[in-house]
């Protein structure tokens, strides 16, 4: 096979270069969240393991989170004591990061973007803090609370969705105001 011609190959273009359709993405996400629930016993979540990562880092530098309300439950303690390699959510998050990297490399669309302004840095840090804090207060992000909530036929997922939508509307107005 001539690799110089690979970017003209129809198979390569359809599978690796062009974005998949929303329908393909939706079907795959649904199939894999069922696999996740069946194999790990918990619905899919993304931001929860990040809180554990924070706790492990804090422990590694000599801190102690045992008395923190968030980590005080038996389940949370068991996860923390079980370690990174025994936490399905952590492994899955690593998989998502490497999978995304692989996809962008295979499409040869990897690029380290330059930071355009200080405003972007401030917005990214503020946004990250608000999202992380909010996701833990709400016991879930748009995956754990919205996606898995609705998939579990829980009303809370729909309530989360309504307020996510309202928040996105306010966010868009702020974005246009500060970044245009």
């Amino acid at each position: 096979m001539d690799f110089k011609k690979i970017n003209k190959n129809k198979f390569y273009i359809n599978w690796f270069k062009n974005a998949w359709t929303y329908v393909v993405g939706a079907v795959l996400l649904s199939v894999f969240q069922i696999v996740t629930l069946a194999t790990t016993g918990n619905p899919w979540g993304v931001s929860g393991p990040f809180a554990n990562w924070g706790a492990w880092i804090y422990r590694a530098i000599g801190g102690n989170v045992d008395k923190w309300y968030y980590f005080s439950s038996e389940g949370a303690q068991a996860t923390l004591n079980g370690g990174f390699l025994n936490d399905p959510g952590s492994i899955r998050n690593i998989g998502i990061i490497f999978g995304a990297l692989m996809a962008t490399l295979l499409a040869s669309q990897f690029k380290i973007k330059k930071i355009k302004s200080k405003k972007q840095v401030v917005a990214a840090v503020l946004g990250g803090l608000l999202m992380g804090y909010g996701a833990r207060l709400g016991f879930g992000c748009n995956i754990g609370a919205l996606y898995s909530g609705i998939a579990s036929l829980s009303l809370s997922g729909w309530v989360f969705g309504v307020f996510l939508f309202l928040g996105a509307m306010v966010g868009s107005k702020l974005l246009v105001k500060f970044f245009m």
Partner: protein
Amino acid sequence: MKEVMLDCLGEACPVPLVKTQNKLNELAVGDVLIVQIDHSCAMKNVPEWARKEGHNVEIEEVDDGEWEVVIEKVK
């Protein structure tokens, strides 16, 4: 018939789309707007919007993860 460059490199959605919409408003029919982007979602929503508005659109991949959306204003 002028050609205008719009630098949207390093900007995330929906900034490139809104900037394109504003810039295209200032241009006259027949002018060409070249939008430089490096955000893959913008590579979808900018051409999609421009085509829906009836403009002529072409996408060029200029580098890894970098595109130029060429829009000819037709009305």
